[in-house]
């Protein structure tokens, strides 16, 4: 299955957006650890903006940058993928339910749905296009990539993929470790065009991904957040070189990605 990668974005530790991270990802500048920060989504009206937590903010910031070059964001079909969803909201509701009055906030409840980030995105850009939200545990980026690529090649239109995860609060953090926030977004198209940055040939392989040798500090981030498993793909895009990437999806399955610059 082949599709074309257009816009791209990344937000993570020492990776403050694609424009400011491309040189680091390409190896022309050293990666330096720095806290990942997501801006408040200026694109949302203030009422909605106040209701968004950091998980949605990371997702929306990545989705915005990846679609900077789009003539009309609202026409893009979307796939949002996240292992944890909004763990801050789930954790707060779990705590609230175990207080004496057991009352939970209605705003938190509607923010607890796994498709909350997608919902805010479509509100923000005024989009009625279809949207899919998937989980995937540690393989959430691969799950989203498979869903987005199959949607693009069968539907015929551009698809925005946004993968994001943020750390869980205590005590959930004790049973589900996520080391830092990370978000990545890509625009996938079923055909080439002026804005295409690379071709992506994708194949599902029903075998455990081969164990890769540990790379540098930047590669090591991959283990700290499901969305950070995109780092090898992002590095291939930044260096504009052909690359073969084996992206773990399940314990016994991976996606084989062949990236070639346009």
């Amino acid at each position, binding site marked *: 299955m082949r599709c074309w990668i257009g816009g791209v974005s990344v937000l993570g530790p020492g990776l403050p957006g694609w424009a400011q991270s491309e040189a680091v990802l390409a190896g022309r500048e050293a990666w330096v650890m720095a806290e990942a920060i997501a801006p408040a989504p200026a694109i949302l009206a203030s009422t909605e903006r106040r209701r968004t937590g950091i998980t949605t903010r990371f997702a929306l910031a990545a989705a915005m940058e990846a679609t900077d070059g789009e003539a009309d964001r609202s026409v893009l079909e979307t796939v949002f993928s996240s292992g944890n969803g909004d763990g801050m909201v789930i954790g707060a509701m779990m705590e609230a339910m175990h207080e004496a009055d057991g009352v939970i906030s209605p705003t938190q409840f509607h923010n607890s*749905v*796994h*498709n909350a980030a*997608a919902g805010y995105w479509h509100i923000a850009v005024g989009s*009625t296009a279809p949207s*899919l939200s*998937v989980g*995937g545990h540690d393989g959430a980026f691969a799950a989203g990539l498979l869903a987005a690529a199959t*949607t693009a090649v069968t539907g015929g239109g551009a698809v925005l993929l946004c993968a994001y995860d943020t750390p869980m609060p205590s005590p959930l953090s004790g*049973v589900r470790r996520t080391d830092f926030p990370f978000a990545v977004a890509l625009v996938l198209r079923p055909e080439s065009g002026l804005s295409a940055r690379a071709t992506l040939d994708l194949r599902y392989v029903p075998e455990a991904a081969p164990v890769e040798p540990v790379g540098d500090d930047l590669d090591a981030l991959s283990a700290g957040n499901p969305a950070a498993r995109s780092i090898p793909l992002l590095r291939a895009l930044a260096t504009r070189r052909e690359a073969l990437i084996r992206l773990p999806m399940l314990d016994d399955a991976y996606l084989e990605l062949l990236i070639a610059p346009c």
Partner: protein
Amino acid sequence: MWPLAITASSAVSALGTGVAPLRAALHARRGGLVRTDFPGGPAGTWLGQVAGLDIAPPPELAGYDCRNNRLAEMALRSDGFEAAVIQARERHGADRVAVILGTSTAGIGATERAYAQREPGQTALTADFDYAHTHDLQALPNYLRVRLGLRGPALAVSTACTSGARAIMQAAVLIAAGVVDAAVAGGVDTLCRLTLNGFGSLGLLGLGPCRPCASDRDGVSIGEAAGLLLLERPGSDGATLLLGAGASSDGHHMSSPHPDGLGAVGAMRAALAAAGLRPDAIDYVNLHGTGTRANDAMEDRAVHHLFGDGVPCSSTKGWTGHTLGASGALEAIIAAICLEDGLVPGCLGVDVADPEFRSRVATGNLAAPLQRVMSNSFGFGGSNCSLILGRAA
């Protein structure tokens, strides 16, 4: 991409285990909602609760044990579903069968229990709590995938109350893209404190059993269910067909539908376009019809906009309750029953439809030859999905 054949299906709901009790209850107009106290939920709520969730996963998969995976296990064991999947596995190869399932909360009940079991002053969750195999959304498709010996992709779709329908639609996408030849698709969602208290916090729980499309409807009754479908390219065996699916977003508000149902119209139009059908080809619309004031009024406007008053429509949530991330899958199976039996199941417990509604709401059961049925699902986050099922040609 279309059509696909539904070569096997399995349903578990408050109406019983298997398609047969679901079918019998629809014909007999015998609902499954009861007033009960779910532990930690709002007192005296009408629920569509599944009885007999006592079948644990096999010992080698014990880590997956939770209410949601037990419900999935029950569905697997009913209607010959497991055997049908194993046959499909042998036909296509284990790596050519995907598992794509919708759920809103998976096994979050296990997390609720882990919180409740802490001693006073204890912060950490109990040591035996297995988050990855219970609470995590991926636990559901992974469980059925390993349980059925499949090696294809496993996807957990979670788009609130459209999850089941959206999973079926994405399964069709994976088959069309050539990634697999068959898919176990559908949804499984179970009662939990978070959902019940959440709907309570929004003031959306009805005081009695839910009565979709009634003028004095006052809210939802939450239910739990599993709906599993085996989807394959059609052969010549006369299986019920999935003729098309369509999705849209509201882009309007997180928990209130667009008042004129623009998103709902978009999803229904997209499904008709996918199936290559005009609205007059649809013989019955199974509504999302949750029984809330806003949802039902919006859906009436949307259905009337496309179908006028020419097509009978009704919600079956008066029987099962709103089974959330399973509802789209459960109601696809109900749509298949309606097609097979020539049945329009009028809204349960409703004498007269809301006089302000302009679409043709059925309130009693009608016998009618049906060729094609549309099933609607809408959810928080502004997610909409419509499926169209049809009799084999």
